[in-house]
Each structure stands twice: as C-alpha cells, then as structure tokens.
C-alpha cells in the first residue's frame, strides 16, 4: 500500500477532479462556481500539506536550535490565493446575478438558446 502513503496528494487529486468535473458537467451557472471553489480549495490543500514537515511546529522562534519548523512560506502564499479565490467567487456570483437579470435564468443551455435566437 505504498502508493497510498502520500495520502494528502490523493485527497488533493480527488478534490481537484470533483471540482473540475462539476465545472464541466453542470449546466447551472452557480454550481459551476461552486465547482470552481472546490477546485481552488484542492490546490490550497496541496500547498498547505506541502509545507508541513513531520514533527515540525509552528514557525515561531523558540530559541532552541533543534526545533523543527514547518515551512511557513506555502501557507503565506495560500493566504494570497484565498483572497484571489474570494474575489473570483464574488465576481463570478455578481456576473450570475446580472445574467439572471438579463436572461431570467441561470441555466447555461437556456442562456445559449436565447443567445442563438437573437
């Protein structure tokens, strides 16, 4: 079962696939955004688990030279990525609201139908 040992990466891949599948397969514009969120969350998990070192502690200086610290950099990067993700979600939802106002629906196929008709 050695291939299961880096289980954190398996979780990352699993979540990523769920997210991508939702984006591609769902016709509801809100659900697509949710799928996108899952996809982004998987990447955040990937970075966070990457920085974790076995037995490592929070990167606050203890004064003891033998302390093992986890790598804080990926975690900090993910703060930025989360901000980006929130902004993307907000913008996407705002667009969905506007689309709903303009078309009266948030179903992709119906929107496409109306675009084709005009």
């Amino acid at each position, binding site marked *: 079962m050695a291939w299961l040992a880096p289980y954190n990466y398996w979780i990352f891949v699993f979540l990523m696939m769920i997210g*991508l599948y939702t984006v591609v397969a769902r016709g509801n514009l809100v659900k697509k955004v949710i799928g996108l969120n899952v996809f982004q969350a998987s990447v955040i998990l990937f970075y966070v688990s990457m920085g974790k070192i076995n037995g490592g502690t929070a990167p606050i200086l203890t004064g003891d030279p033998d302390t093992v610290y986890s790598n804080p950099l990926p975690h900090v990067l993910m703060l930025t990525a989360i901000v980006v993700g929130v902004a993307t979600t907000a913008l996407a939802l705002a667009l969905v609201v506007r689309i709903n106002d303009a078309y009266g629906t948030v179903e992709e196929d119906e929107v496409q139908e109306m675009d084709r008709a005009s």
Partner: protein
Amino acid sequence: MNPLLANIVGHFPILQVVVPLVSAPLLSLLAFLRIRGLAWIVATLVSLITTVIAASLLASVWGGKVISYEVGGWAAPWGIEYRIDTLGALLLLIVASISTVTLVYGRSSVLQEIPEDRHPLFYTAWMLCVAGLLGMAVTGDAFNVFVFLEISSLSSYVLIAAGKRRESLTAAYRYLILGTIGATFFLIGVGLVYMMTGTLNIADMAEKIVAVRDTRAIKAAAAFLTVGLALKFALFPLHLWLPGAYTFAPSTVSAFLAATATKVSIYVLLRFDFIIFGQATPVAGLHFSQFLMPLSLAAIFAGSIAAVFQTNLKRLLAYSSVAQIGYIVLGISFANEDGLTGGIVHMFNHAATKGALFMAVGAMVYRLGSAELHDLRGLGRRMPLTAFSFFLGGISLIGVPFTAGFISKWYLISAALDDGNWPIAVLLLLSSLIAVIYIWRVIEVFYFTPPPDGAKTREAPAVMLAMVVLMAAATVYFGLDTRLSVGAANEAARILLSGGLL
C-alpha cells in the same frame, strides 16, 4: 543627474507597477466624489507616465543588460526580485503604449457605450488590468506572476462584462471560468516546481532545477504550467473564451485586450519554458516548447478558416487572433533563434496590427452601432480614413510586404527552412492565402458594394480617428523600420536560448 531624479529612476521597476496600481483606488474614489469627468484624464495621464517609464526601462536594458530590483530591499532569492531584460521591457512598452493609445482613442467610445456614473469604476478596472499585465512582465518571482495574472484577469472580466449587450455577461462568465482554471493550473505548476526546488525566484529556480531535472514532478509541473498558460493565451483548442469575449466587450476594451493580454501570458510561458524548464530533461529529447508545434499549426488553420465564415467583423478579428496566436506559438516552438525572433517580433507586430484593426472597427461601431458586415457596405466612401486604416491592418495580417506582418512571416518561414522543415514553410504560406480570403471579403464590402440608401455617415471624432490612423501607420512603419522590433526580439531570443544567463 539630479540626485532626487536619479533616485526615482532607480525605482522605475517598481514604479512601473505601483503607479497604475495606486491610481486604481484613487479613480474609484472619484466615483464616490461624483467627479466623473476627471476619471478619463487621470487614467490617461497615469497610462502616459507608465509608458514613459517603460520606454526608459527599455532604453536602459538595450544591448543585453538586465535590471534586477529588490522589492523592499530584501535580497533575492528570499525577497521578491523584479527582473527586467530586453524581452520584458519590450512587453512593458507594448502594454503601456497600447493602453495609452486606446485610452486616448476610447474617450468618445466609452462615453457612448458605458453609463456615465460607471466611468470612474471602468477606468479603475482598466488601470488594475494594466498594473496586472505590467506586473507579470516585470516580476522575477513565480508566485508573484500568479498574483499579477489574477489581478489582470479579474479586472479584464469586469471590463468585458461592461459591454452593452447581455451577451457580454455570458462571455465574461465563460472567460472567468476558463481563466480561473488556467490560473489555478498555473498555480499547481508553480507549487510543484517550488516543492522540488524550494525557491520561487525564477532565476534561482533555473539553477536549482538542474539537480532534479529528471523527476516526474518537474515534467508534471511543465505540463500544468503550459496548459494553464495556454488557456490564458487561448491556444487552440483552449481558445473557446476568446471569440465571445472580444466580440462583446466594449470596443476600446477589445482593442486593448486583443493587443496586449494574450501576449503577456505567452511571455510568461517563454520565461518558464526556456529559462526554467530549458535546464530540465525534456521528454523524448524535445524541448518543452516543441510540443506546442502541432497545436499552433492547428490554431493557425482553425482560426483562419473560422474567420472566413464570420459575418460580424469583431468576431472575424477574434478568430483571426486565434490564428495569430498560433503563429506566435509556432515561432516559439521551433526553439531556435530565427523562430523565437519571429515569434517575439510577431507579438509586437500583432499587437500593433490587431490594435489598429480593432480600433478601426470600434470607430465603425461608434458611428453605425454595428459591426455586422451587412451594415458596413460602402464604408470606403462613408468613412474613408477608417476603412483605409482597416485595409492597412488587414494587409499586415496577410503579411504583404511593407507591413509589419511581413517581417514576422519572413522570420517564421526562414526558421522553418533553416530547420529543414519544408512542410511547415508551405503551410505558413497557405495560411496567408486564407487570410487573403477573409480580409478581402471585408475589403470588397467596404469598397465595392454601394452604401445602403440614405446612409449618411461621417468619420469618427477627430481624436478617435487620429489614433486609428496612428496605429495603422505604425503597422506600416514597423514593416519598414525594424530596428526596434527585430532588434529587441532578436536580443530576447538570444537571451532565452542561453537560458537567461546573460
């Protein structure tokens, strides 16, 4: 030099990004203060300043020099490094100057297409987009690239959604979904490289990657990065967002994005493929960029053929963009000096050409309210200068001598022949013939069909028209005087092929 001035000049690399970035909140403040008229003036001035900075940066790296700037005084590779070489500086100049020209051009168009109370916010998004694009070109830090990529992307979704018709909303939404997937793929790639090298500084990555050059993680990273960026620069078959976005965005935005946005993503790909992965062991003995060759050829033909069947001029140009991106990527995929020079010089020439074409179409939309070919009959008589500018841009797309497009094609075909790659040289020439067809369809409508009865149309306002003519003149000028474009492209190609270690 005055010491204060010298100090400011020393900080140009960061000012290049900070000036437009800071102007954005100031502009949105104008919305609350209800001083709407000022927004355009501020945006244009700021854009002009960034152009001056970009030009001065290009001048100071000319001849193969590299500027390295430590943000906040933290030394690389721990701090964020801004690193400008000839290629980056060329990109900066393209983005900043196109932004300035389209802003000056777009004043009347924006007044017409966007409700006045939204103007400050529109220009806020514009400056954020400019800051993002400039940042991507200037930074030497891989994660920083992601941040700037998202800044420019998010603001360009907003800009596209500002279009008048409701289709612009769906176009922006589609771009958002695909763009976010692309950016996230890019992020995964960066993460994998970081995992293997422990650094985010691009120059540092290039050195440390040598130790892990054969690993599967690096190959996976290259794949993720390439696909992610290919989504952003709309390489066939990942181009699905592009035609809608360029068709339904406000005219000014179409002109700006078509000329700049995709180019910057290609630039990022260049840096990763040549500077970082150039050091890694490629698959099957090929350089990583060489995998893009079949896709780029498919892009050239699919885009050109799709363009032949379009009846909306903006959509026609959008599909032509898909093809032109193919040319750029094809040049890169040769991975030799002529090919890279051709690809890079086409980034520059295509920016001028497509800018001119979209601006000309914007002027038509301004007067006629439509970009349908059917409504543009007899335009040669109704808007002679605009139509002629479109003609000049069109023949540059075809690659007729005396125009910028010819220079690019010359290098691309030379690269194919140098490679002994006959079929590609022939395919390139064939694709030019398809361009003849789609451009000539438009020219015939402009010049050889009578205008609809009673149609009284004047040229667009003087300033708008002047900018259209200026850009069209630029496409001819850069077909004759190639010192700037080919000079910089050739230098950039040599830097890239030497792994960026100059």
